């Protein structure tokens, strides 16, 4: 690994210590919020972040935690930049991140597909697998849950309501 590569890896390691405030089972790196980290020749650390959802209320807190974590590791100057392109997608979640979500009780996202119809038939909507019992005898109750990234479902097999990390 090049020296710059090793430095970036060390910086990523620091940022992997920051859990997402709303889904603490995942850290902000595996969630795909941190897009790029670079140690500049002048000693400043440049960090590029991208929001998951436009209105994610945790974004500012995440930025503060990035600055605090880097400071605690001796990097006093941090330059944060928000990038929008490419737009965040749940397809960036690794298999291990998805497994962590499931273990946490949140159904992981399927691959993000863009449906043709803008208002499809409700009966054609895909059924999420229950993270507790694995049954697909489930029903979507609402596309909107406790946070922007989650939908609410109900499992008719084990009679548990559960949340799903929406594929987007």
């Amino acid at each position, binding site marked *: 690994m090049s020296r710059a590569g090793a430095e970036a890896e060390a910086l990523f390691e620091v940022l992997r210590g920051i859990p997402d405030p709303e889904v603490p089972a995942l850290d902000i790196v595996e969630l795909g919020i941190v897009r790029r980290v670079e140690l500049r020749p002048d000693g400043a650390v440049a960090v590029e972040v991208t929001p998951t959802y436009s209105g994610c209320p945790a974004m500012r807190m995440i930025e503060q935690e990035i600055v605090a974590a880097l400071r605690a590791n001796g990097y006093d100057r941090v330059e944060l930049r928000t990038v*929008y392109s490419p737009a965040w997608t749940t397809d960036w979640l690794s298999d291990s991140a998805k497994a962590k979500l499931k273990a946490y009780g949140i159904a992981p996202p399927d691959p993000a597909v863009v449906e043709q119809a803008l208002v499809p038939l409700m009966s054609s909507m895909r059924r999420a697998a229950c993270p507790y019992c694995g049954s697909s005898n489930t029903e979507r109750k609402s596309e909107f849950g406790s946070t922007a990234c989650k939908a609410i479902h109900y499992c008719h097999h084990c009679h548990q309501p559960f949340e799903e990390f929406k594929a987007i």
Partner: protein
Amino acid sequence: MNEGGAVFEYLLRLGDDRLILGHRLSEWCGHGPVLEEDIALANVALDLIGQATHVLRLAGQVEGEGRDEDALAYFRDAIDYRNINLVELPNGDFGRTIVRQFLFDAWSVLLLDGLQRAAHTELAGIAAKAHKEARYHVRHSGEWVIRLGDGTEESHRRVQTALDELWPYTGELFAADEVDRLLAGSIAPEPAALAPAWREVVSDVVRRATLTLPADGYMHSGGRQGRHTEHLGHLLAEMQILARSHPGAKW
């Protein structure tokens, strides 16, 4: 008007539509007909206000006068707001809120799809994110229009009335002026070009909802030029009072 000025104006329009509609929807928070719907409307409001934040921040950068998204949101008067009149109208009952939302969402999803493929890199990035959100917004409001229209006699009557009363506010979605003409084809899709696809989506949902599509007649206009209904001033008074009473406050 030069192209920079037109881009600023265009971004205000895009941001103001979302800020004002988001604020209107937020009035439902704690008042939804069922808990899940209360959460849903608050979520949509949050998405829209988030989209407005990103767009207005970019508008401030394009303008180059040192105004950030908060300055643009809280320190402009109604006459300087560039949203269409549809989004500032009072919520009315749940059915009316949903019909307004559907008419907007079906247009917004098409507009954002055009913008995400347009030439302005930063705006395209913001639009690409917002487009993903608009996809589930229109699914949500469209499903509700169908459910209410094809529901009880009472719900059918209410959403048909709402559709009839809101229809004259949809002309603004596709009206073009100098700003649109300066940007059409490069940064923004031509407004009228979105009309056929919008009509198709709206007609399909209206049919499935057993509702009747209103006839095109008189259409309200003026929002893009700062001519608003009386309702916007009242909305802004509530939205802006804290920031104006304590300008620059930090906590």
